[in-house]
C-alpha cells in the first residue's frame, strides 16, 4: 500500500466508527496525541491516589476507611489499565514514569490541591470523580481500541466512587453546624477546580479540533462541562449545599444552568507547576518509585535463579 492508500484506509475506519488497533497504520500525529492523552490519564489516576491517601489513617469510622481504601485501590487499577493500553503503542512504561518525574508528562491539575478536612474526601468523590465520569463515559467511544476498552472497564467502577463521595457530603449536611460548615467549605474550594478539569473553553483549546476530527475526543470540553454542571447543581441543592457562584442562573429556554466566569489564570498557574501541591505530588512519587527499586531487583533475581534451577533439572 502507498502512504496515500494507508491514510485513506485509516480515515475510512474512523469514518465508519471502527476502532484503530495497535498494529494498524496510523498518522504519526494520531499516535502522538493518543499516547499523550493515555499517559496523562494514567498518571492522573495514580497521582490522584495521594490526596485521598492523606485521609486513610484519619477516616472517621472503620466503614469509611474500608470504602476509601477500596476506592483508592480502584484508582491504582485504573492507572494500570491505562498504562497497559498506552504500552500497546510501543512506549516502555519506564519511559512514561521518567516523563512524569521530569515534568514532561502532565497529570490532571486537580490533584495539586490539598485535602484539608474529611469533607474534602466527600467533595473529591462527588465532584472530581463526578467530572471524571462525564469525561470517561464519552471516551468509551474513543477511536483507539485499547483506550476505549480501558474506559469501559473504568466506567463500571466509577459510579461507586461518586456515590460514596456524595454520601459523605449528605451525611455531613445532616450533621452539626460545624460539620455543615466543613462540607460547604470543601464545596467552595473544589467546585471551580472541578469545572476546570474539562480543560480550556472550546474557543481556546487548540487540541480539541484535531482530536474531535479523529474521534479521539467525542465531545468538546464545554459540552462535557455543561453536562456535569446540570447534573451537579441539582445534587448540591438536594443536600442543601450552596454552589459558590453568584452568577449561577437557570436558563428557562435552553434548560441549562449558566455559570459565571471561570478563573483560567488559576488553572494555568496550577498547570504550570505553581499549585499548592505540585512539588509534593511528584517528589512523593519519585521517592516511592526509587524506594521500590530493590524490590524489583530482588524479584527479578529470584525469578532468574528459579528459571536456572528448573532448566538444570530438566536437562
Amino acid at each position, binding site marked *: 500500500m502507498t502512504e496515500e492508500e494507508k491514510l485513506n484506509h485509516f480515515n475510512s475506519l474512523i469514518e465508519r466508527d471502527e476502532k484503530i488497533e495497535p*498494529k*494498524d*497504520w496510523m498518522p504519526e500525529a494520531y499516535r502522538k496525541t493518543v499516547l499523550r492523552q493515555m499517559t496523562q490519564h494514567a498518571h492522573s489516576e495514580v497521582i490522584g491516589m495521594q490526596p485521598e491517601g492523606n485521609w486513610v489513617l484519619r477516616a472517621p469510622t472503620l466503614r469509611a476507611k474500608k470504602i476509601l481504601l477500596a476506592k483508592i*485501590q*480502584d484508582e491504582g*487499577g485504573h492507572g*494500570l*489499565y491505562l498504562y*497497559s*493500553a498506552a*504500552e500497546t503503542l510501543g512506549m*516502555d*512504561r*519506564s*519511559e512514561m*514514569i*521518567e516523563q512524569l*518525574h*521530569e515534568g514532561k508528562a502532565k497529570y490532571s491539575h486537580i490533584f495539586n490541591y490539598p485535602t484539608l478536612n474529611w469533607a474534602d474526601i466527600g467533595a473529591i468523590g462527588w465532584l472530581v470523580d463526578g467530572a471524571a465520569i462525564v469525561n470517561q463515559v464519552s471516551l468509551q467511544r474513543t477511536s483507539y481500541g*485499547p483506550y476505549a*476498552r*480501558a474506559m469501559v472497564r473504568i466506567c*463500571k*467502577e466509577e459510579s461507586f466512587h461518586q456515590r460514596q463521595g456524595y454520601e459523605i457530603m449528605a451525611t455531613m449536611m445532616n450533621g452539626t453546624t460545624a460539620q455543615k460548615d466543613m462540607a460547604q467549605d470543601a464545596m467552595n474550594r473544589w467546585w471551580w477546580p472541578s469545572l476546570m478539569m474539562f480543560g480550556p473553553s472550546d474557543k481556546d483549546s487548540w487540541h480539541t479540533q484535531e482530536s474531535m476530527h479523529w474521534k479521539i475526543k467525542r465531545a468538546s470540553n464545554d459540552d462535557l462541562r455543561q453536562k456535569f454542571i446540570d447534573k451537579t447543581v441539582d445534587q448540591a441543592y438536594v443536600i442543601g449545599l450552596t454552589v459558590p457562584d453568584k452568577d449561577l442562573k437557570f436558563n428557562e429556554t435552553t434548560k441549562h444552568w449558566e455559570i459565571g466566569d471561570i478563573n483560567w489564570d488559576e488553572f494555568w498557574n496550577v498547570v504550570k507547576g505553581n499549585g499548592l501541591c505540585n512539588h509534593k505530588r511528584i517528589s512523593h512519587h519519585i521517592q516511592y*518509585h*526509587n524506594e521500590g*527499586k530493590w524490590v*524489583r*531487583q530482588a*524479584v*527479578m533475581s*529470584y*525469578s532468574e535463579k*528459579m528459571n536456572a534451577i528448573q532448566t538444570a533439572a530438566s536437562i
Partner: protein
Amino acid sequence: MENNNDQLPLWEVFIQKGGSPFKHEGSIHASDKNMALQNARDIYTRRGEGRLIWVVPSDSIAATTVEEEAEFFDPADDKIYRHPTFYKMPEGAKNI
C-alpha cells in the same frame, strides 16, 4: 535522576467467565508466573469478573501482522460455498 529502566516483564491476561471463551483483558507486569497470576487477579478481577485466569509472557505470543493480512487470509476469501447462504434450497422446503 536515578535509572528508571527496571520495569518487570510484560504479561498478557486472559480471563474466562460463565462458559464463554477466554477473553483478553489487558496486560500486567510481573517477575514470574505466580506474581503474574496474583497481579492479574488484583487488577482485573476485583468484582467477580471471572475465576479462571491465563497469563502469557507477551513476547511468547505469535501474531499476524497488518502488512501480511491480505495475503494471509486470502485462501479463505474465495470459498463462498463455506457459507450456508451459497446453497439454493428447493421451493417450499422448511426448517433447513
